[in-house]
């Protein structure tokens, strides 16, 4: 069953076509990768899915429901959460606060009862904290909960950003270059981490990545984007041997 479906999505900025007529299908429970050279339009695709941009043409469906036209926060409420290419944590706030903020979208108490600490609001806040600490515990970040998030080592910041996305109770996770700037052993750990959270939280994962070994290792399906066009799709082996993909990557693969 498809969780996320892009139907003929075109995104145009003035004369620049960043995404041209994309058709992408992300199936439930799978890890799907979107790869391509720099400037191919991958992040644009994420921005279209998460509502940052409205597609010029085409539609985006989440569990069969059209979501393009909705604001980013509404899309997150439906169950899609993301991370960013260049980490966007709430850097001056603590690790726990970062997670708590991602819990806010489901809050039931209104601001007044929250402020004056009505019994039900207190209960909700307590539940929120417990849930957040449980999540941090599961991901091995609990011991850092009172640290300022910008003081965390790079790898932990990436992990926290994923944790924060999970805290929204998302079922579809969009990871924008989660392994950027990581060495091979860190990348290996990240691969295991992504795998384990997928299983533990029943997630579907759609990710942009440059580390080919990571992509080849954990993806169930790969889409290849070049100059805004999808040039190939399929399993790791199918994509690896596709002549168009080799051409697009020629000379680029080294530093990828």
């Amino acid at each position, binding site marked *: 069953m498809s969780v996320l479906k892009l139907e003929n999505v075109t995104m145009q*900025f*003035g004369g620049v076509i960043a995404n041209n007529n994309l058709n992408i299908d992300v199936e439930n429970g799978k890890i799907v990768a979107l790869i391509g050279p720099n400037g191919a339009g991958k*992040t644009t695709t994420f*921005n279209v899915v998460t509502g*940052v941009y409205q597609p010029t043409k085409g539609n985006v469906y989440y569990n069969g429901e059209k979501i393009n036209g909705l604001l980013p926060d509404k899309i997150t409420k439906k169950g899609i959460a993301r991370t*960013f290419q260049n980490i966007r944590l709430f850097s001056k706030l603590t690790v726990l606060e970062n997670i708590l903020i991602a819990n806010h979208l489901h809050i039931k108490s209104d601001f007044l009862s929250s402020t004056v600490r009505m019994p039900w609001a207190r209960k909700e806040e307590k539940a929120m904290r417990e849930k957040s600490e449980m999540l941090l515990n599961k991901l091995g970040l609990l011991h850092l909960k009172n640290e300022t998030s910008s003081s965390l080592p790079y790898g932990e910041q990436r992990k926290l950003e994923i944790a924060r996305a999970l805290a929204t109770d998302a079922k579809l996770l969009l990871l924008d270059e989660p392994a950027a700037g990581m060495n091979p052993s860190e990348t290996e750990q990240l691969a295991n981490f992504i795998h384990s959270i997928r299983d533990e939280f029943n997630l579907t994962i759609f990710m942009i990545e440059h580390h080919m070994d990571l992509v080849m290792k954990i993806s169930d399906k790969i889409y290849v984007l070049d100059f805004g066009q999808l040039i190939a799709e399929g399993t790791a082996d199918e994509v690896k041997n596709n002549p168009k993909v080799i051409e697009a990557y020629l000379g680029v693969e080294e530093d990828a």
Partner: protein
Amino acid sequence: MTFQTFLQQLANGISLGSLYALIAIGYTMVYGILRLINFAHGDIFMMAAYFMVFSVVNFGLPWYIASIIVILATVALGVLLEKAAYSTLRDAPRMSIMISAIGASFLLENLATYLFTGVPKGFPNIAILTKSVSIAGVSLSVATMITPVVTIVLLYVVMFITNKTKIGMAMRAVSKDFETARLMGININRVISSTFVIGSALAAVGAILWGSKYPSVMPLMGVMPGLKCFIAAVLGGIGNTAGAVLGGFILGMAEILLVSFLPSLTGYRDAIAFVILIVVLLVKPTGLLGEKVTDKV
């Protein structure tokens, strides 16, 4: 209302509009390059008016020599302002830079009150500008008539500088992409200073013409024109020089027409600009001639 009065008001509107336009160019150029509302620009304008008062009244200089001195002094003040209040905060958070701009404006106003007292000073009477000329039954001062001409000429000069000269090319590069321009070896500080030079010079010319029409010089005289001219720049499309002039004209016309057609609303004269601002920001935030900018995520 007779046809004559209508023509008279029309001329007043165009004239006021061109004054706004002169000041608005300074806002739009600084904004284009620094992405900063130069809150102190209106106060630079005010200081220019005081410089004129001192050169002519206190030092007894003829108006044409005084004008040159005023322009030079205003330019020096503008560049000094940039060096003191803005250049040190180049990499600071946006809110700090804006607070610095507000602080600079506030400081200039208070300094003027302290040095020149709050009592209005009379602007020197430049006979050649205040002389009244009658055309087709409409009586206008020379200042009113030449202001639009001066504005258009200066607009062409500014457009020539930005489009045809080397420094102008650097300005355009910086306004397109600050970081890349810096990496490409463009001397950012020189570009920014040049922007302040042009903006301040135009404000000085504006002040001289303004004083000939409204001959009362006060420490807070720059506040309202300052805000309105920023609005004119937004209306025309911030960052766009011709847009600033267009915005200035529209604003000046709107104001004069309101006062002459709906005299009962004269008290709300200063509110129109803000109403226009809100409408523009809602309907077409990029302004009449502005380009669309997309935020990068």
